[in-house]
C-alpha cells in the first residue's frame, strides 16, 4: 500500500506517521514564525535608524529618556559592579594562592571586569531595569490606543517613541559599562588589600601591567552593540504587545528574556571577532603566568 493511500487512515487513527508529520508541520510553523518575527524586527530597527538620521527627536523627550535610562541606572550598576569585583577576589584568591600568584589577582579581576563582566553586567542591568520597563510602557500605550492616537495626530510613533529610547540606550550604555568596570576594579582592589592582605604596591603594578587601552575599547565596543540590541528588542516587544494586562506582562518578560539571550550570544561572537582583531595587530600579549 502506498503512503498516499495510507495517510488518511493514519490521520483518522492518529498513528505514528500522522504524529510525525504533525510534528514536522508544527516545527516548520515555529521556524516560519521566527523568521517572520526576525524580519519584522529588522524592518522596525531599520525604520528607527532611518528616523534617527532624518530628524532628531525632540530635546525634552530625549533628555527624559536619557535621565530614566542612564542616570537612574547608575547607582544600581555601581553597586553590582563593586560587589562583582569583590566576589571575583574571593573566588580567585584560593586558586591563585596555591600557586603563589596572589599578587597577580588584580590582573585577572581587572581583565575580567574590563572585557567581560563590566559590559555584560551593565547590559543585563539595562535589559532588566530599563528594557522590560520600556516594553511595558510602550505595551500599555499600544493597548490603550495611545500609539494609534500619536499616528492619528500625524506624529510618527517610531520617531516619537522609539528613537529617543534607542538613542539613550546606545549613547549611555558605555557610561554605565565604564561605571561597572570602575566600581568592579575598585571593589576587587579594596577586598584584596583590606581583607586578603595583598600588598597594594604589587597588586597595583600587576593590575596596570595586564590591562591595556584595548581592554577598555573591547568592553565599550561590546556594550554599544548590547545597548542597540536592548533598545530595539524592548521597543519592538512593546509595540507588538498583545491586548490586555497579560499582553503587557508578556511583552515585559519577553523583552528581558530575548535581550538577555541576545546579549549572551552576541558576547561570544564579539569576543571571537575582537580577539581575532587584537591578535592580528598585537600577536604577543602579556601573560598572567610569567610573561
Amino acid at each position, binding site marked *: 500500500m502506498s503512503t498516499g493511500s495510507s495517510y488518511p487512515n493514519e490521520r483518522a487513527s492518529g498513528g505514528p506517521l500522522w504524529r510525525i508529520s504533525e510534528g514536522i508541520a508544527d516545527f516548520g510553523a515555529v521556524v516560519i514564525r521566527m523568521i517572520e518575527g526576525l524580519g519584522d524586527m529588522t524592518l522596525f530597527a531599520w525604520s528607527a535608524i532611518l528616523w534617527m538620521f532624518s530628524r532628531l527627536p525632540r530635546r525634552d523627550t530625549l533628555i527624559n529618556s536619557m535621565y530614566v535610562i542612564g542616570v537612574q541606572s547608575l547607582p544600581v550598576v555601581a553597586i553590582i559592579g563593586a560587589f562583582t569585583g569583590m566576589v571575583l577576589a574571593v573566588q580567585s584568591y584560593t586558586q591563585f594562592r596555591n600557586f603563589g600568584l596572589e599578587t597577580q589577582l588584580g590582573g585577572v579581576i581587572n581583565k575580567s571586569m574590563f572585557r567581560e563582566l563590566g559590559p555584560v553586567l551593565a547590559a543585563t542591568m539595562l535589559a532588566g531595569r530599563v528594557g522590560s520597563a520600556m516594553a511595558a510602557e510602550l505595551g500599555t500605550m499600544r493597548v*490603550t*490606543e*495611545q500609539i*494609534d492616537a500619536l499616528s*492619528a*495626530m*500625524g506624529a510618527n510613533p517610531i520617531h516619537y517613541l522609539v528613537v529617543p529610547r534607542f538613542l539613550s540606550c546606545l549613547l549611555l550604555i558605555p557610561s554605565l559599562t565604564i561605571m561597572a568596570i570602575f566600581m568592579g576594579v575598585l571593589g576587587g582592589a579594596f577586598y584584596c588589600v583590606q581583607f586578603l592582605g595583598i600588598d597594594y604596591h604589587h597588586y597595583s603594578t600587576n593590575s596596570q601591567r595586564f590591562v591595556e587601552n584595548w581592554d577598555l575599547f573591547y568592553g565599550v565596543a561590546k556594550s554599544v552593540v548590547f545597548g542597540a540590541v536592548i533598545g530595539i528588542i524592548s521597543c519592538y516587544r512593546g509595540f507588538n504587545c498583545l491586548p490586555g494586562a497579560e499582553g503587557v506582562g508578556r511583552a515585559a518578560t519577553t523583552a528581558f528574556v530575548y535581550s538577555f539571550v541576545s546579549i549572551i550570544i552576541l558576547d561570544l561572537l564579539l569576543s571571537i571577532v575582537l580577539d581575532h582583531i587584537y591578535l592580528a595587530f598585537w600577536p604577543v600579549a602579556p601573560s598572567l603566568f610569567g610573561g
Partner: protein
Amino acid sequence: MVAASPLIDLQNLSVRFGRQTVLRDVSISVPAGQTLAVIGESGCGKTVLLKTIIGLVAPTSGVVEFDGRQFGNLSERDVSAQRTRFGFVFQNAALFDSMTVAENILFPLKQHRATGDADQERAMHSLLTEVGLPNTVLKKYPAELSGGMRKRVGLARALIMRPEAVLYDEPTTGLDPIMSDVINELMMRTRDKFEVTSVIVTHDMNTARKVADRVVMLYPLNRLQLDESQILFDGPPSELDASTDRRVTQFIRGEAGDRMMELSEQAGG
C-alpha cells in the same frame, strides 16, 4: 445644510486580519458637513472602519479616499499632513499618561509647529471653555480625571488643529446617562460651530438618533450569507423604526440578546 461632494469616500472596502475578514465590500460616501453614525453589534467592524478612514488600518482591497486622495498613495509627509485634517476621539480618550492635560491638548500644535506659543495658549483656553472644562484641569494628569472629563479633553485635543472631519469611537461608552447627553450636546455644538464632517461609531441609539443626520448599520460577517451586504441599514435616523429587517429592529430595540444566546447555545452543541 449638507453639501453634495463626498469628503470621505469608501468604495468596496474589505479588511482582513489573517484569516478573519472584518469588513467585506463596504461602500459609504460621507458628504462634507454630514454627521454619520455607524451602529452595530460589538465585533462587526465599526472601529476598524473608523481607523481605515484615517489610514491607521490598511484596507485589504477597495478604495478609501479623503477629499479625493487615498492614504495608500501618499508619502510619509503627506500622510502626516492629511491626518492633521482629522480629529480622532478615541473610545477611552487615549490621552498620554505621562503628559498633563495642557500638554495633551497642545500636543498636535507642538508636533506640527502650527502657531506661536501665545496663539497656542489662546486656542487651548478657548477650546477648554468650549468643552466645558475649568482651567484648573490643565495641570492635572489624565489619571486624575473622571471618564467624562477625559472624553472632553480628548475632544479638545481632537479639535485643536481645526479639523475638517472628526471621527468619534464610542464617545458615550462607559458614561452615565447625564454625561452621555453632555457629550452628545458637545458633538452637536462642535458640528455647528466648527462646521465639521463627523463620523460617530456607537452602539448607543440615543446618540445615533439625537446627533446623526444619517445612520449606517453594520452586521457581523460571521452571521451573514456570502451574498448579503454587510450594511443592513443606510438612511436618516427617523427611518430606523420603519425598517422591515428584523435584525435592525432587534438591534435598535435592544432585543437581540436572546437571539444571540440561542445562536451561541446552538454553536456550543
